[in-house]
């Protein structure tokens, strides 16, 4: 995958269908309908007080849902524009992330990474070990977390360089 910084965007290019497929799963990974432990992680309690936690669930979590959904909608819009840049046996693709969408991307990528980690019980040790062949769903989840982390890091560095 190549990364190009232009004046107003981050462009990922030269990636194959497999990676394009994983990119298209960014917003699916954190879908609350999928449920599981991800929901717990995406909507944590703010303290140990039952009353405040109940209020939080009622009044704050709906706002958080809106933030997360809005970010996912922006990302889905950009993902819909993934372009095939070469044909042949192993076609290559390209994706443009406008800098004005960077905050939404950071949010969606983080939702996806945290949801995957929660659902597959990924630990710090899993994250620190070297690359392994993808032979299970769990291995695929670790690969996805790392792929999304790479894009997130590129966006963070770009945003920091703009400040």
């Amino acid at each position, binding site marked *: 995958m190549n990364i190009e910084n232009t004046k107003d965007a981050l462009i990922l290019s030269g990636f194959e269908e497999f990676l394009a497929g994983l990119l298209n799963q960014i917003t699916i990974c954190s879908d609350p309908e999928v449920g599981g432990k991800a929901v717990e992680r995406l909507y944590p309690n703010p*303290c140990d007080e039952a009353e405040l936690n109940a209020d939080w669930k009622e009044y*704050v979590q709906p*706002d958080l849902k809106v933030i997360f959904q809005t970010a996912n909608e922006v990302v889905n819009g950009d993902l819909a524009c993934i372009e095939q840049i070469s044909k042949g046996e192993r076609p290559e693709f390209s994706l443009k992330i406008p800098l004005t969408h960077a905050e939404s991307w*950071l*949010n969606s990528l983080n939702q996806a990474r*945290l949801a995957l980690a929660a659902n597959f019980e990924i630990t710090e040790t899993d*994250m620190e070990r070297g690359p392994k062949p993808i032979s299970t769903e769990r291995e695929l989840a670790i690969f996805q977390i790392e792929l999304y982390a790479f894009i997130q890091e590129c966006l963070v*560095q770009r945003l920091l360089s703009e400040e």
Partner: protein
Amino acid sequence: MAPLEGTLVEKKTQTSTSLDVPWNVVVRNDPINLMSYVTLVFQRVFGYSKERATKHMMEVHENGRSILWSGQREQAELYVQQLHGYLLLAVLEKAH
């Protein structure tokens, strides 16, 4: 004075939180969140310099938690809400 017969005496225990008691905004470690991302969020939410934000991020990373801010409960809740919007593991704690 003894209560009248048949009068229900309610015992009330009132707990009150003094307005003066500060609340801490604490961020806990999460192995998935990127260090650079956490630093960026601290800069955005609290307006901290890169150095100060990095110091707190390292505290979270090395000690498992860092107190990012202390003050009135209402403001502390707003900060925690913002941090949850960025998907950080933030909690409110009464300062001791």
